[in-house]
């Protein structure tokens, strides 16, 4: 059963890209798709479409075999909640502390403000050197700490799918190995991953399938 399925999708161009025309894509448990492309914008657009942040001109989006009507953004919220998205346009909420940002989703869905960080998240915070900055707001942090916090937030939301855009640029090189270990632990539990990376080591470690985006056409290879 595919976790995400895009059927007859067409995406209008963003930035300097060509857009993507009439493609279908299925993502199953255990898949590790790496993207090769002639246009970074098209790769980013495809990743945004996977997480439903880009709406198609036409096509059908299915999550866990359920068809999602993307004409109303609210229908896609339960899917978004289950996708980890680490990309250049991911952000923290600037008027909340790091702790509140990390607990934001749980505060809302568990309807309590008395929650504390679970052991896994606290462990990631220690590993990414964020633990002593939990009470600070994003504006008081170094840009790299902001990216590290976003990484922790996405990894700790127990996603069904992980979507990564150039993780080697997003994550501090001194912490990249920690990040790879965390992703490896998740992929060993058959978590599907789709990523665009120019890091050969990362691609070799997590890719078992390949996607090619060229001149607005998407092709997948096993």
């Amino acid at each position, binding site marked *: 059963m595919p976790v995400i399925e895009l059927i007859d999708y067409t995406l209008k161009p963003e930035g300097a890209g060509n857009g993507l025309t009439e493609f279908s894509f299925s993502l199953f448990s255990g898949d590790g798709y790496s993207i090769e492309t002639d246009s970074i914008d098209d790769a980013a657009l495809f990743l945004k479409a996977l997480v439903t942040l880009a709406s198609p001109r036409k096509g059908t989006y299915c999550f866990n075999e359920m068809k999602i009507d993307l004409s109303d953004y609210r229908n896609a*919220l339960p899917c*978004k909640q*289950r*996708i980890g998205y680490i990309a250049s*346009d*991911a952000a923290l*909420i*600037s*008027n909340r502390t790091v702790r509140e940002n990390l607990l934001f989703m749980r505060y*809302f869905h568990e309807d309590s403000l008395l929650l504390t960080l679970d052991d896994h998240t606290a462990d990631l915070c220690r590993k990414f050197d964020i633990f002593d900055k939990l009470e600070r707001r994003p504006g008081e942090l170094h840009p790299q700490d902001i990216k590290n916090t976003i990484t922790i937030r996405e990894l700790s939301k127990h996603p069904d799918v992980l979507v990564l855009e150039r993780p080697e640029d997003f994550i501090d090189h001194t912490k990249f190995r920690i990040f790879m270990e965390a992703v490896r632990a998740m992929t060993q539990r058959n978590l599907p991953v789709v990523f665009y990376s120019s890091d050969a080591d990362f691609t070799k470690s997590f890719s078992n399938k390949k996607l090619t985006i060229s001149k607005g056409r998407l092709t997948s290879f096993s």
Partner: protein
Amino acid sequence: MNQLAGHIGRRTLAAVDHLPNLLAFIYSILKLIFHRPATGRAMLKKFTLEQIFFTAYQALYVIIPVALLIGSMLIIQFAKVSTQYDLGKIMVLLIVREIGPIVTALIVILRTATAVSIEIGYMQVFHEIEAIEMAGIDPLRLLCLPRLMGITAAILCLLVIFNLVAVIGGYLIVWIFTYIPIKNLFGQIEAAITFTDILVGNIKALLFGFSITVICLYHGFKPNMKITGIPAQTSKVAVECFFSCLVIDVIISVLFYL
């Protein structure tokens, strides 16, 4: 020539679209009020209280001096030209019915509406709204509802404070610093004020709160926002909010007093 025609055409289409889009936005916010899912209530409550704190409590240092100045100025000016009975009536007419609601709305527009519009604009530009969506949370519910409740409740509270400070404080200032004879001002106000005056003030405050919030959120949530568009949008919000409050003020006054 073509460029000019295109520019005029785009501006016209934008102006024509504005009202239906605003009405659609109002409809979606009204729907949020009546749709009450079980999740997120604690967070909404916290955000509403934060909004009340910012809009009402932190505005006290502005509204109290303004109310004192306006109240005392009115008493000084009208004490010279009116009889004692008229002074109480004039205070009710001007402060409780007209100046109170409008000045309160103006202060909220200057402090809060502009701030909210900038905040939401920045959230839009820096993908923070997408971050909220990625947490599976409806940004409209999380950002609009607490602001709507908070700003409306805050305007109501500020209006009561403005009226009390303008009348009592203004009287005290005149009594302490001048020799103008204003005997039994409170008795005159009590005789002049009616239940309708209080009701109308509250209705105005509620409608001002609603219109101010809706306008600043509507502009903040406009799609394809650019960072360079935020200052222009903020000034547009301030003007539109003030104009809408004046229109509401006139309509309510005509409905109740004409």
